[in-house]
């Protein structure tokens, strides 16, 4: 299988000023040299506690933060992102229909009628109904909102989907439904998914391979069954015992 994304020695640091006018700049290294790859059609789980730099990896891949090191994406491949809080990632003042149509417009669909048709098609693809196009995000449940987010993320035709804690804000039953939807979409569209989570239980059934991150360093890498039955790093053992 081909690698769709290769990350080599990725380092990210944030500078922040302390002490006001006469203070000094403090540099915090968030990622200290991360290397991994994602293959075509693979779901890679990225597990770590909060502050371990999981989301920063996602942001670096999408070029939202300055970084050093190499991030290579295969030619012409687009990446989309799903955020943790589906409430914040949908504009509250726009109806679902116009959110999807705006995403279509930004992806280059300039024909209004076609935009409408494609928005309808997408809302059905993510398991909602036509009537949801006329609702505001605030009128939908958390699961429905995350479905809309997934729909918006799929519109540019990405080959790589970065999901940053996509189910953490949802009830357990809804979590299962969203994960199933993601799995189905991954089959239909041949997506690769970088699945970021702090929850080992969610990752176990969902991912093909997983990486465990601690304080900006990869401490463990492997297929879930092997990592679970035979963890190498102390930190992984600690994580597993806390389940």
């Amino acid at each position: 299988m081909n690698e769709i994304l290769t990350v080599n020695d990725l380092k990210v640091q944030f500078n922040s000023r302390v002490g006001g006018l006469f203070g000094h700049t403090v540099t915090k290294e968030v990622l200290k040299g991360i290397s991994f790859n994602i293959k075509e059609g693979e779901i890679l789980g990225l597990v770590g506690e909060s502050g371990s730099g999981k989301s920063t990896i996602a942001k670096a891949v999408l070029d939202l933060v300055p970084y050093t090191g190499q991030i290579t994406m295969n030619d012409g491949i687009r990446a989309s992102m799903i955020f943790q809080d589906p409430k914040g990632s949908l504009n509250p003042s726009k109806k679902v229909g116009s959110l999807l149509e705006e995403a279509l417009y930004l992806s280059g669909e300039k024909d209004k009628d076609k935009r409408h048709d494609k928005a309808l098609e997408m809302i059905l693809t993510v398991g909602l109904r036509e009537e949801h196009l006329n609702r505001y995000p605030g009128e939908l449940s958390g699961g429905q909102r995350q479905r809309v987010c997934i729909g918006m993320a799929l519109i540019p035709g990405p080959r790589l989907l970065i999901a940053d804690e996509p189910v953490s804000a949802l009830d357990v039953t809804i979590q299962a439904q969203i994960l199933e939807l993601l799995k189905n979409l991954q089959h239909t569209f041949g997506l690769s998914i970088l699945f970021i989570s702090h929850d080992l239980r969610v990752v176990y059934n969902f991912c093909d391979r997983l990486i465990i991150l601690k304080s900006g360093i990869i401490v463990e890498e492997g297929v879930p069954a092997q990592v679970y039955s035979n963890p190498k790093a102390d930190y992984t053992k600690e994580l597993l015992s806390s389940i």
Partner: protein
Amino acid sequence: MKTNKKNFNFILGIGIIIFMVLFVFLGRILPLRDANAIDATLKFAPPSLKHPFGCDNFGREILSRVIQGSFSTFCIALGTVFIGTFFGIIIGALTGYFGGLVDEILMRINDAIFAFPSILLALLFISLLGPGTYQVVIALGIAFIPSFARIVRGEFLKNRNMDYVKCAKLLGASDLRIMVIHILPNTLKVLLNSVLIGFNNAVLAEASMSFLGIGVQPPDPSLGRMLSEAQGFLFKAPNYALFPGLAIILMVLGFGLLSDSFEK
């Protein structure tokens, strides 16, 4: 209970505003005497059927002067709020969205302007521009920009780091598109409230400026100047001060109640 009170405020506010708008606009259609027509025989004529609000020290019809004065106050306040909101949105959006040096420079200028009472600042502009109706609109408009800029900036600052903006950025939306199409609609709720309060402040500021004699120029009527002229005849002709005062109170009250009912 709380919602009931808000509904009451809303209905009363809308009612007063509709009444004032009808009063001002119907009044201009009615065949009343010219607001500036002087008739010495009617000097200090008390309210009667023929002259419902009475006549002033020049024998001018107070009713038509109140109508004309309310109309110009209304228009000046509208113009002021329009200038303030328009430039406030532009400045607030740019500073709030981009931050950094632009923000620092514009907001420090903003702070400096904000530090002056708006009426004092308007006085300063009037001394530069000269008195007159349009000058008042421009002067008050400029004085009102900082308060709107501040509110819009706060909203943009709050929204620019939200995930929906990141989403739009990832989809390839330009900064201008994000500001106008994505963030601006989310500031409208807060903005509407400050527009209403701003309108009230503009009415009061215009009245104060006319009271000081630097607003609308004589002989054209203005509520503020009618009040200042009526000062000397407070006991002789209380109706002279009463009606323009009432018009100001009703205008401010209507918009004040409306903005109260929109508050969270």
